[in-house]
């Protein structure tokens, strides 16, 4: 199809597009001169780290800028209409009807007070394309094409009554309601589990092909964009790095930056020797059943974590991974079972644990933003555990804080007096690690520590954790839903589903066939960098 592609008429062009945002009292560039061309029926992938300007470019394709931003130069031409000069009325006429937008979080983008189908009908009725009854019939048809369960009645539910993946598909159907020429997908699957992601990706790809719609697909996940896009454009800090046909780009990226993005997924830590048979595990979870009220979230869960080992606990959301962490830390006393720390039974409630028991098990959180008190300076954030558990004061405390900052590779003089808001996402996560280290623990729980970070930054964090582990003989429990991370960092893997441990053992054993069917499903759902991966997979699963 690549041959005919270049002969189709051009739908969207951007020339030297510059967009600025207002910070304090001056304008700074967010997008610095981007050229873009999109033909009818073509899918362009925009990738880059956060702050690269991908979403800003995506919104600009609708002639829209966020509050506090302005188009400073260049032109945006959609089907012959200059969007930078077009009146609000003209743009309003285009939006929804000829250009549609699918946001990252469908849950936050749907109005919770109206039924799905009513929100579907809004655009076609508003633009005078269909009557209400006609639009409803059309909605059911599209819901069916999007492979939503029970398409005849699902539209009459409220947004909170359907799952995240279904909501994302309903949103794509809604974007399709006026049969637009162009859809902008802004990270539509980032918030979803791998298994759900597959369904949404397949549905989006099918419908875009069926209606020959052009699309801009924005994501930070290379493997995903490889499945969806005909061409890929890489952005970095508002500048274009390179653009090429998907296959060319994957096979032979030209720029160093692109290559570094490609290389992230190849990181893997050194194989660890097997644990001695008689070694006492640092943490041992034994037959734990726990939950809220009468509902059991965990059923008879058990696993061991040894010193200098990383145990990855994987599973979809709702599988009980985080609940297991809450039981270990003592936030949620289990109904049955017990937690052993170096062979000693821990009191189930953290309030009954001794200060030393609390010190030995530390936690690093997923969202560094909410894990650090925004009003405390780094000095106090890191210094407090050292002061509290180890009784350090004055000069010795100061030295220890500086030592910890050096350990997490942040310059002490620059960072010691900053507030969390003066740090980047990756730096905040490093402070979270330093706070855990300050207690000099034996065991650290890492709860999705990299899932909110860009891939390059996440890789840095994983390497740091790895280095610290061998330096301080730490045991890690690594909670994640990202199997790529598991492959990179884990020694042992515990696969969880609906509160049960499905499979556990050394990484090599769990990831080698034969698999449990659920592990197989999880493993095969991780997108690969091969553009044919999704097609092959769907064929193998018999869904096409």
């Amino acid at each position, binding site marked *: 199809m690549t041959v005919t592609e270049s002969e189709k008429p051009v739908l969207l062009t951007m020339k030297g597009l510059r967009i600025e945002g207002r910070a304090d009292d001056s304008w700074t560039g967010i997008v610095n001169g981007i050229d873009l061309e999109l033909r009818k029926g073509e899918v362009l992938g925009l990738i880059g780290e956060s702050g690269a300007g991908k979403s800003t470019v995506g919104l600009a394709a609708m002639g829209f800028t966020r509050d506090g931003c302005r188009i400073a130069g260049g032109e945006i031409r959609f089907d012959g209409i200059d969007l930078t000069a077009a009146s609000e009325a003209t743009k309003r006429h285009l939006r929804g009807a000829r250009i549609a937008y699918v946001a990252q979080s469908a849950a936050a983008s749907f109005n919770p007070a109206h039924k799905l189908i009513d929100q579907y009908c809004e655009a076609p009725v508003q633009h005078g394309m269909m009557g209400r009854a006609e639009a409803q019939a059309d909605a059911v048809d599209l819901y069916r094409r999007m492979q939503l369960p029970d398409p005849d009645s699902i539209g009459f539910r409220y947004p909170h009554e359907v799952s995240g993946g279904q909501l994302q598909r309903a949103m794509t159907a809604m974007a399709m309601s006026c049969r637009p020429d162009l859809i902008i997908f802004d990270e539509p699957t980032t918030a979803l589990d791998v298994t759900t992601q597959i369904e949404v990706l397949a549905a989006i790809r099918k419908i875009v092909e069926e209606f020959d719609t052009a699309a801009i697909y924005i994501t930070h996940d290379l493997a995903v964009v490889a499945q969806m896009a005909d061409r890929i454009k890489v952005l970095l800090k508002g500048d274009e790095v390179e653009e090429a046909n998907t296959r060319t780009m994957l096979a032979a990226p030209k720029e160093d930056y692109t290559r570094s993005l490609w290389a992230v997924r190849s990181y893997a830590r050194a194989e660890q020797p097997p644990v001695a048979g008689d070694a006492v595990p640092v943490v041992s979870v034994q037959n734990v059943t726990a939950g809220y009220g009468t509902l059991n979230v965990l059923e008879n869960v058990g696993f061991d974590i040894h010193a200098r080992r990383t145990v990855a606990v994987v599973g979809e959301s709702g599988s009980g991974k985080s609940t297991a962490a809450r039981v270990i830390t003592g936030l949620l006393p289990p109904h049955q079972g017990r937690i052993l720390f170096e062979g000693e039974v821990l009191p189930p409630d953290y309030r009954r644990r001794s200060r030393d028991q609390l010190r030995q098990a530390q*936690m690093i959180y997923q969202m560094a933003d909410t894990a650090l008190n925004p009003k405390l300076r780094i000095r106090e954030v890191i210094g407090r555990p050292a002061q509290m558990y180890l009784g350090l004061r004055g000069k010795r405390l100061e030295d220890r804080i500086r030592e910890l900052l050096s350990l997490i590779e942040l310059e002490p003089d620059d960072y010691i007096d900053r507030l969390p808001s003066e740090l980047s996402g990756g730096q905040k996560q490093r402070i979270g690690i330093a706070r855990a280290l300050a207690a000099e623990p034996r065991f650290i729980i890492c709860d999705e520590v990299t899932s909110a970070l860009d891939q390059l930054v996440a890789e840095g964090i994983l390497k740091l954790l790895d280095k610290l582990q061998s330096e301080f003989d730490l045991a890690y429990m690594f909670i994640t839903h990202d199997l790529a991370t598991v492959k990179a960092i884990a020694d042992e893997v515990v696969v969880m589903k609906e509160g049960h441990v499905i499979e556990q053992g050394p990484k090599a054993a769990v990831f080698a066939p034969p698999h449990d069917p659920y592990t197989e499903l999880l493993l095969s759902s991780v997108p690969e960098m091969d553009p044919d991966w999704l097609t092959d997979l769907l064929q193998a699963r018999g869904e096409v």
Partner: protein
Amino acid sequence: MGVLTTIFWFLVAIAGCLAAGWLFRTGAIAITPAGVKRELRTAPLTASFGMLMILLYILVAIFAPLIAPFPERAVVGTEYMPWNSVHLLGTDNLGRDMLSRLIFGARNTVGIAFATTLLAFLIGSVFGMLAATVGGWLDQGLSRLVDVLMAIPALIFALLLLTIFGTSILTLILVIAVIDSTRVYRLARSVALNIVVMDYIEAAKLRGEGLWRLITREILPNALAPLVAEFGLRFCFVFLAISALSFLGLGLQPPLADWGSMVKENATLISFGDITPLLPAGAIALLTVSVNFVVDWQLHRASGLKE
């Protein structure tokens, strides 16, 4: 013509106020350190005027004995003397100097209102944050108690309590503080509830931090912005409540000068077209408006609105 002249002088007065605000802001920016300077630059003219007025009230309250031409309680002339060169604002129903009492009134009314608000905030926010942090039965118990207290109209309740316990300054402060602390409790609790679910609070709990440190170091700094804004508003309400109680005869007792009771004592003059009794009321209104100007500015900043 008469209407136009009034409008003209009204506009001149507003322009004068704004000019005073501008002068004050320019002056303040020139003499304050860098951090405060930055904040002051964001102040609108209304807020600058408000700050100027609050500053003036504070100065008057502190230096009252130096500024006032006559003592607070001395009878220095005949009753209801008109404005003249000795008694600039005339005398009151007992022949005491009106201007002097107005100046001393600032000290009493504003001082007591400030102390009451402070106490109300101390009680309300400590219990509110405690309820949010500990939760469970303590939260239930305190919240239902507050509900009961709030179910009774504040002014009626205050009148009732003051009648029972007598009308000394101390009881006045305590009664109004307790009644007002219920409102502060509700705010502090709801703000703290949003903070205690954060991961950093969980981290602090798992670290083994005690309740006191949790509240003072982890929760309070994050709850401060809405509480400070509320402080300004509450101060106005307390101020009005004290004046209202004084007007009804249950607030500050004579011979203490107080703006609310001064209106009451001299109210008969209004029938004769003399505006003197309205001056203390005007003083109350001006301070209330000024405080609200400053609070509006702070709320705007705390809410992070750009426009």
